[in-house]
């Protein structure tokens, strides 16, 4: 069922603190707007509580799951301090009814830049190694905060969720903790599936018992995937025409490309690190975050 968002006028009526609204992106049951809140520009997110499912019981389950995810995302963002993670805006989550449908709206800071997916699609100049290192460092810092402070795994690190800013002190920011997984929290996915973007799936996430062994090394894998793809303008594993099964099968079984082959101008040391972070077994990915960050700090 296609999702048709309500008119901007009706949204402004439901959220009167918004002065101005422009659609920025749309996907699934969520629309993101740039919005003027007070004197500031913010990103306003409007989530339609999913109507999918055939029975009332299923609808209630989906509603509970969606509300739970939004609450967790907002709670988590409210606690995060690192500039490498997006900050909350002024509009706290509010449940509203518009034309008989339930919506949750809330805002995040406005980040003036482009996401890496758009930059990749534009096929511009490839980043140099220093920039690739800065990207990896930013993602490592975000993963460090999520894991070491909040025992949470992002689970959706991908070029689309990373914004490149024109700010040397804050070059990259990681967005969208919508499917972040807290080790200390109860699972929210009631159908037993794994919420993920298959193209950016850590191999262990495709295993039935993944919840028992999941840790931040899944985020290290997707961080390395993102750095690889941004640097080489090619995904280390996936192919555009692959179907879901082929994509997951490649994640599980196919050795990834070597970064050095795609970017011979990069240092062997950096390429080896990215290759190592892309190993199928989490145990083979370097897990000492402090050491990794220190290494990137020195040469970024």
């Amino acid at each position, binding site marked *: 069922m296609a999702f048709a968002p309500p008119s901007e006028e009706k949204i402004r009526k439901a959220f009167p603190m918004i002065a101005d609204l422009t659609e920025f992106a749309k996907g699934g049951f969520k629309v993101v707007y740039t919005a003027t809140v007070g004197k500031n520009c913010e990103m306003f997110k409007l989530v339609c509580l999913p109507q999918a499912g055939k029975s009332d019981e299923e609808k209630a389950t989906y509603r509970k799951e969606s509300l739970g995810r939004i609450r967790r995302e907002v709670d988590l963002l409210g606690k995060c301090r690192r500039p490498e993670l997006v900050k909350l805006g002024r509009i706290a989550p509010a449940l509203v009814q518009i034309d008989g449908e339930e919506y949750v709206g809330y805002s995040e800071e406005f980040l003036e830049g482009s996401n890496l997916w758009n930059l990749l699609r534009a096929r511009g100049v490839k980043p140099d190694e220093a920039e690739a290192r800065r990207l990896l460092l930013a993602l490592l810092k975000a993963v460090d905060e999520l894991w070491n402070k909040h025992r949470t795994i992002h689970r959706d690190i991908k070029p689309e969720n990373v914004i490149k800013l024109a700010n040397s002190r804050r070059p990259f920011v990681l967005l969208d903790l919508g499917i972040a997984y807290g080790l200390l929290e109860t699972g929210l996915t009631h159908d037993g599936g794994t919420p993920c973007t298959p193209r950016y799936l850590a191999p262990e996430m495709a295993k039935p018992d993944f919840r028992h*062994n999941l*840790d*931040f*090394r899944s985020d290290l894998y997707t961080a390395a995937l993102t750095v690889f793809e941004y640097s080489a303008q090619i995904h280390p594993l996936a192919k555009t025409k692959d179907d879901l099964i082929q994509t997951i099968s490649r994640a599980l079984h196919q*050795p990834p490309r070597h970064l050095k082959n795609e970017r011979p101008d990069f240092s062997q040391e950096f390429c080896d690190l990215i290759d*190592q972070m892309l*190993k*199928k*077994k*989490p*145990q*083979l*990915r*370097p*897990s*000492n975050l402090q*050491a990794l960050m220190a290494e990137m700090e020195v040469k970024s």
Partner: protein
Amino acid sequence: MKLYAQHGHGDGKKTAEGLAKKYIDGVILSPKDIPESKLKSTIKQFRTDSRKAEILFDPQFYACLAAVDPASNLGNLGEEDAYAYFQPRRRSQLLSERQLCQDLDATLQFQSELAVSALIAPNILIPRSFDSAEAAISMDFIRNARKRYTKLGDARPMFATLAIARETLLDKEELLRFLNDLTILEDRPDGFYVLVGVNSTEARSEIYHADVIAGWMFINHVLKLNGYRIINGYSDILTPFLGSAGAEAGATGWWSNLRAFSMDRFAPPAGGGRLPIERYLSCGLMNRITFDELGRLRDEVPAILNGLGTDKLYPEESSQPQRNQEVLQSWDAIRQLNTQLVQGGMDSALRKCLGALDKAQKIYGDAEASLPRPFDPKSNDQHVEALQEGLRLFSGLAELDLG
């Protein structure tokens, strides 16, 4: 890569000479074999023999479960009023975190008063499976080691003991699960002192088994990738293979029970037995052969000779060395193998190891054609195939492409 003497009964001047001649970089002391009253003076003497010697003390805490048997052979560990950190323990006692932390405190405190280069935290042996109460206890020792050590305020590195039976390495899924937990410790030791136990130190096939070799190398590799330093006890000829996988050091000694780790060392003495035949460690064969075999082959197949200074300890006329000098030749040969094979990054080192094994196979072929009868069972080429297969298995586990 470094090589240490695995210390034990009957040292005499072996370690001192090994240190003085720089065949070894240090020594791992065995309290079972040194009276506590002589421990400090022994360390002092080693420091005098070699100012740069790295001295470690294996607390041998893993013998505590065997110590409940009054017939156990604990040597000086069992002496009253000696090595007070060491007490007989039942498994149920160690399920208590309080007891476990007290044992950690006592063992680390004891070592902090010694002039050792680094401290080794205590642990028990995981005897059969990583899915066991012993594995849970072992993980608790490792998990708590850093916290307890920090309280001592000692600046020296601290290594956690990881002692496992070879059987634990046969189930790769369990090994992966154990390593999964081991590599995300919050309170990290500086490194690990890794021991792989066999049932009988005389059975070559227990160590020279592809799964055991691959698993032991994989542990070294994973720990190294995760930023740890690794010292392997009782690693003997496997030392360069473990080095190629990431180890910092290995160790070996003069008796067979110092070349392979076994809890047999603490079992009631069986009595009797003959002194073993003196052997020569051939780098080319990657194995020890009897002095008699050396004598028969040295002219026909010179590739079995190492061309090192210690070859002179095996005189051309009889090839029989003085017994107390046999270990010097072993250390010198393993040091040579380390130098030749552990260099230039892991892929390169592993390829060198594979190349050395191919060469060993060829030398064995030449040697067998020259000998009037088959090699002695411990001298034959049984280890070569196991090592080759072990390296291939390891490459698969480590997701390496060696071509």
